[in-house]
């Protein structure tokens, strides 16, 4: 069973306690944007086989949103972190690099 540590309340939460929220760090487009930008924001997903940044909600717990870095190929969890950040913080990138030396953030 997938277990994530909620960075908001510190609980180690089973996936039955959590609600998945899809890809994290999507750039949100507003009025005046092109059709392509809207299409990308609404529908296109990286969907990588490997390192994935994603949103989770501690639904049956503190109720707060947070983010996680996880490998979709092994289900390894690298880190969980605050949702109040537009991009993965350095300590998360370091935690991933320690386990996936060939990985880079663009990939």
């Amino acid at each position, binding site marked *: *069973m*997938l277990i994530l540590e909620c960075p908001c309340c510190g609980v180690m939460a089973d*996936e*039955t306690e959590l*609600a*998945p929220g*899809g*890809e994290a760090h999507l750039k949100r487009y507003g009025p005046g944007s092109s*059709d*392509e930008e*809207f*299409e*990308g924001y*609404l*529908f*296109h*997903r*990286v*969907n*990588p*086989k490997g390192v*994935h940044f*994603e949103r989770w909600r501690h639904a049956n717990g503190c109720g707060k949103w947070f983010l996680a870095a996880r490998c*979709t*190929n*092994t*289900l390894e969890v690298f880190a969980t972190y605050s949702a109040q950040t537009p991009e993965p913080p350095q300590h998360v990138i370091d935690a991933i690099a320690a386990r996936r030396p060939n990985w880079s953030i663009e990939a």
Partner: protein
Amino acid sequence: MRRYSAFAIAREAARYHQGWERAWASPEPKKSYDAIIVGAGGHGLATAFYLGKNFGITNVAVIEKGWLGGGNTGRNTTIIRSNYLQDASAAIYEKARGLYETMSQDLNYNVMFSPRGVIMLAQTHHEVRGYQRTAHANALQGVKTEFISPARVKEIVPIINLDGPRYPVLGGLWQARGGTARHDAVAWGYARACSDMGMDIIQKTEVTGVRKENGAVVGVETSRGFIGTKKLGIVVAGHSGVLADMAGFRLPIESVALQALVSEPIKPCMDCVVMANTVHGYMSQSDKGEMVIGGGADGYNNYTQRGSFHHIEETVRALVETFPMISRLKQLRQWGGIVDMTGDRSPILSKTPVEGVFINCGWGTGGFKAIPGSGWGFAELMARGYSPLTAEFGLNRFKEGRFIDESVAAGVAH
């Protein structure tokens, strides 16, 4: 190819079964092909088959990283139905269902198509209205379905509990010519027919890159070297995003795990397929006597072909409510597949931003039933650049907001 027949069985029985030939060849890849299909699941193989049969294009390779039908085609619960709401879906799924009716004869391979009937239970008033609407839509589309009463449901499925604790059965959408087929046989039958037409089925060979020149495809890099082509069909289900990434474009797709299980075999007790979408579960009985059970997909991205245990628990709990007699059954096997979920839960059969590259994906939790229709339409799209069957399923619909909203039909079950 030597035909299979009653006579062939008698002939082989008389000589200790030594005369059966290999069903398909395992050739070395050539330097280039007129068309290459990536992925030897049902959809990829059906595409190759109709490229040959309907368009005479036989210089074709189907490249598979594992073994034939080892993806979702060999992992699904084989429900076949075409009672969809939208016209575009009804057209392609009904085309497929119709082709299933004669597939064993067409391929000279017994795919065990069994039109035993499919019931989708209505267990809320909302569902009653929804399925009545679907039945009316199906009447207009020429798809034969009917909305039936609880008493009729009980007649067709005696083991069902009509007044369950949470959701009583209020009726059902019944498609008498829906049913099941043997999934492996569908892949094998197509592979045998393709091989017979001179196509190369290349297993244990992974596509690792898509080579382009001036925005057009010129071939694929594989674990056995470069293979050239000007026409590439990507038909890899859960790995569509990975292949699209190689070709350099993004898809409106996320890959998640979907699981199924079978019980220990028991005597025949249910001779149709029952789907209970409100409680998230469906069940049929295989010819071996196992109860074949499936439910909802996991909610997070996953490529491991393993799902979450609690989904199995939820599915079984829901079905025990609906069929109390299964509460003492033991689970025999459980497995998962990686399904490709699109933004509107309908498939994509489309040209792509790369010249010469076509994609057939997004069948998600419910594409087994569509295999022959999808192959028919996608082959036409690849050969001619247009197919009436696939026209509505283009990638451009996401930009243009022309969704094919079947989430009611395809979001949970099959």
